[in-house]
């Protein structure tokens, strides 16, 4: 589904990603872990098409397409979804109104008819249950004045509405208490299927108790320096990141 090959990226002339290799197949959950500043969020941003980042080398193939050629909205329509670490507050635009525009533009690109008001509402109600989100919240301006938990829940709700093939959760656990974390993780798990894949970007192992990864990768100084199964995450939790740094220094 996704094949990242020797990906290099920089921002304002500063190299952040220095040769990422990663392959993701349908049905898989990959966790990307690593200390602060290792390039985790950059990787998520580059995949979603954030334009401040410049890809200086490498390629990303996504279902037979050159992902790096696509505009952010084209990626979204092709099934890439980025759950933002810091969802943006947009005054005056209601979540409902925004999502209707998004869902219909995505549907159009996928060759489906636009949803009318009634079917959209029906669809929304069904997906609201999934992340336990309140109708009142959705008629308010997008993320404006939402608590941290509400913002993240709204991200997962949008994910449910857009039915992506590849979801990238960027530090979705940051700013969440344990209850909110569980609700968000539940939502993600319910959306999981054999045909879609998930990348979970996280600093802590905590989220991986709830969203169980098939593979864990450690990103350090812009490279994946270690890959393993979920046990690797537990090891990192226990020992921190220093032992990896040391291992690399001695290697």
């Amino acid at each position, binding site marked *: 589904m996704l094949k990242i090959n020797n990906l290099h990226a920089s921002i304002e002339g500063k190299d952040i990603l220095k040769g990422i290799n990663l392959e993701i197949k349908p049905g898989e959950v990959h966790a990307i872990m690593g200390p602060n500043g290792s390039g985790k969020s950059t990787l998520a941003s580059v995949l979603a*098409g954030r334009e401040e980042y410049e890809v200086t080398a490498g390629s990303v193939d996504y279902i037979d397409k050159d992902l790096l050629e696509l505009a*952010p909205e084209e990626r979204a329509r092709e099934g890439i979804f980025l759950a933002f670490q810091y969802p*943006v507050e947009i*005054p*005056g*635009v209601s979540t409902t109104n925004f*999502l209707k*525009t998004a869902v219909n*533009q995505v549907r159009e690109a996928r060759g489906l008819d636009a949803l009318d008001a009634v079917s959209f509402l029906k669809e929304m109600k069904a997906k609201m249950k999934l992340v336990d989100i309140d109708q009142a919240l959705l008629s308010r301006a997008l993320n404006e004045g939402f608590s941290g938990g509400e913002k993240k829940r709204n991200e997962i709700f949008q994910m449910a509405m857009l039915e992506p093939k590849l979801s990238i959760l960027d530090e979705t656990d940051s700013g969440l208490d344990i209850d909110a974390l569980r609700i968000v993780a539940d939502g993600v798990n319910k959306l999981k299927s054999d045909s879609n894949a998930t990348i979970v970007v996280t600093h802590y192992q905590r989220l991986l108790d709830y969203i169980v990864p098939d593979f864990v990768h450690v990103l350090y100084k812009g490279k994946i320096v270690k890959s393993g199964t979920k046990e690797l995450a537990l090891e990192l939790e226990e020992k921190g990141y220093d032992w990896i740094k040391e291992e690399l220094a001695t290697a």
Partner: protein
Amino acid sequence: MSDITIENKLTEMFDNWSKESVHLDSALTQVRKNAIKSFSDLGIPKLKSEAYKYTPVQRLINKNFDFSVSNQAAGWTKDACKEEFYQDDKANHLVFINGEYVSDYSEIRSTDDLEIKTIDDESFDQNAEIKNLMGKTRSIEKDAFAALNLAFFNNGLFIKVNKNKDAIDTFVYHFVDSESGQTINFPRILIIGEQGSRANIYEKTFSKGSQNVLALSILEASVAANAEVRFTKLQQFASNEYTIDGIYANQDKDSRFYTNTYSISGAVIRNNIHINIGGENSEAHMNGLYQIAGKSHVDNNTSVDHMVPNCYSNELYKGIMDENSRGVFNGKIYVRPDAQKTNAFQSNNNIVLSDTAIVNTKPQLEIWADDVKCSHGCTTGQLDEEAIFYLRARGIDKKSAKALMLNAFANETLEEVKNEQVKEEIEGIILNKLHY
């Protein structure tokens, strides 16, 4: 010729006009004589004038208009006008042609709620209210263009909303024709909202012709105790149209006055709004949007005078400027020493979409009372790139993402427009302009 000032030229024209026998004796002619004298004394604001700092009216008028040339006959027929009316059988539809109210073209549906009259020599003579109020709203005497309008207007419009009546909507249409030459218009409206009455007035303009048009409009409103007047104006002009517009209002106690001004296009638009809150527990609301492109220049100059205690004023103006347009906002809040417990708020927010658009914004607070709540805020910026990326990351194309955000930004100014048809129309115009 160049040493003859425009003021002298206009005074001379007026003198010639007033010497015609039909005008000699009327009471209105006397008022006009005083007005032309005031105009001559005040003079058209010069470049040095602080109030017209960014809008060089004298130069614009000198360059584009010749007052000694009369307007040609307008080619708007009754049917052509009627075709442009809003679909509303229960409303009043009032027609101005080249600045003159034409009762014959108008459709007045209710004489119970409202009294509607032409302001001319005869009605001025007979109607004490017109005589007592027209040209006398506080502060209007300082406005040279209001004086000029008073001297030269022909067939003004008088609307009185009867006591305790919740009046039907009133639409005022200005039909302008500049096909066969430049056109200079002096539309004038006087509104009285009697005690406990409510009125909604909507104004818009239709133009044909491509010669220069100058509209020097005046609206005066007298809002009695516990009355409410809502006034909405859509300014969508062609690039040959210049407008200097004045709204002056006096408010009595427990009253509410609203202005909603949407400036969409035109060569130059200057809006002067002056509200005098002269009775306690009253509210004044001023909302406006200038969403402009090309070389359009929109200058909103507003002031609210809190003369008495316990009143509220709120002002929200928003600007979206593209290409080489220029938006000017000057908002004055004046709180007199006696006007304790005043709540006065003002905000002006601008989004600039091009490198060449210009915004000049200036709040002006003059507060002489010590127990008040007053605030002002102005912002000028570009669209939030992070927000645009967020919307795009959900599959919304860049253009729609911008439109969605700008639309939300602009729509906040529409909250006080009560007529759904008008609101939808303005929303549509806003949205349409966003999909450039």
